[in-house]
């Protein structure tokens, strides 16, 4: 093997190996890069975001229109502030509402948008007024049991219609 050819092949090998590491770091791991296309960002406050994570999809009518870019906590209102990065291709009315939903049984959580009727469209930096947080299973069960007990009591006190 010629010295030059040897150098070349080893160089190709090392470059390929480093490129694979870079791919793992940037595309597979969470050292973010790559965000294609023009976007704009709006904020939405939720009283509970459940398991919503950054980079979760934002959907309208089931179509992905953006991603969650950041999740933070507002110490003034004690609410979670979620930044939604939306695709510039899509415009939404200012009274669009946002809700946190779950896809599948154990699936990921995402933000679902529902369009309102305003003529004005959302711009970069706006915030959504109408929001609905994630459903917490424990609260739901608690509420259900409470209602059940209430209706039982009501049934006991009223005389049986016979």
């Amino acid at each position: 093997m010629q010295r030059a050819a040897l150098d070349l092949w080893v160089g190709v090998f090392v470059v390929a190996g480093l490129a694979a590491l870079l791919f793992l770091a940037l595309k597979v791991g969470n050292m973010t890069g790559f965000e294609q296309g023009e976007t704009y960002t709006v904020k939405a406050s939720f009283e509970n975001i459940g398991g919503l994570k950054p980079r979760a999809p934002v959907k309208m009518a089931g179509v992905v229109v953006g991603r969650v870019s950041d999740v933070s906590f507002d110490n003034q209102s004690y609410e979670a502030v979620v930044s939604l990065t939306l695709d510039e291709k899509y415009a939404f009315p200012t009274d669009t509402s946002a809700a946190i939903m779950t896809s599948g049984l154990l699936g990921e959580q995402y933000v679902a948008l529902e369009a309102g009727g305003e003529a004005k469209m959302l711009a970069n930096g706006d915030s959504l007024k109408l929001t609905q947080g994630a459903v917490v299973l424990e609260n739901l069960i608690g509420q259900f049991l409470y209602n059940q007990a209430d209706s039982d009591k009501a049934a006991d006190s009223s005389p049986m219609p016979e």
Partner: protein
Amino acid sequence: MINRALNSIRNMGGRVVNSVSRLGMAARFFGLTLLHSGQSFSRFNLTLREIYSAGVLSLTIILVSGLFVGMVLGLQGYETLQTYGSEEALGILVALSLVRELGPVLAALLFASRAGSAMTAEIGLMKATEQIAAMQMMAVDPIARVVAPRFWGGVISMPLLAALFSAMGIFGGYLVGVVLIGIDAGSFWSQMQAAVSFQDDILNGVIKSLVFGVAVTVIALFEGFDAPPTAEGVSRATTRTVVTSSLAILGLDFILTAFMFHGV
């Protein structure tokens, strides 16, 4: 009768003492290799040649196996995840199992059988044809000239090969999951990125493959250097290299995993 029983116990003891003393020799050999590594860096073309024969020539098998392992993971993972309605988690499954375990371990096993066995056979044959003895006659240190460059060539190649294996496997999982089955590409990547951490998963995988690289090359070089200078001796040493280094990789992997991933 009693004699035979005594003999078998004696043999067992002899085997244990023998393997422990071989372990000691291997440790001394490893130390000597590290001590005599100066030349592998001052005359780097020696090491370059070994990176070529250990790393570049293993590329094909590593890339092809990585692709197929990833594709199988994609198919099997989809079958199971589908029953829970969470096919989007396929990206996490493929990436985490490759980056944490399968990438380093399978790449090291392939490396042991592809490059490790070749190293043993080469050095064993050098010894059988008295090239090593000739070097010593000419006051050339065979550890510095023959062993250390091969050691560093293997240690440098191993993490790169493991990274290529993982990357290729994730690409295979993507091919099956997104292109063939039709999972949403966005959630495939985004769930993967949300779940795989650079420090906890990728860096630990690189550390694992470095440790495996050291273990495999030391075992291969020691078996070659220690082989009886006969055809049968060399063939036995080559077999022993593959068996011992495979067991060493799996054992070390368990220990490293227990250290790295408890509670992650």
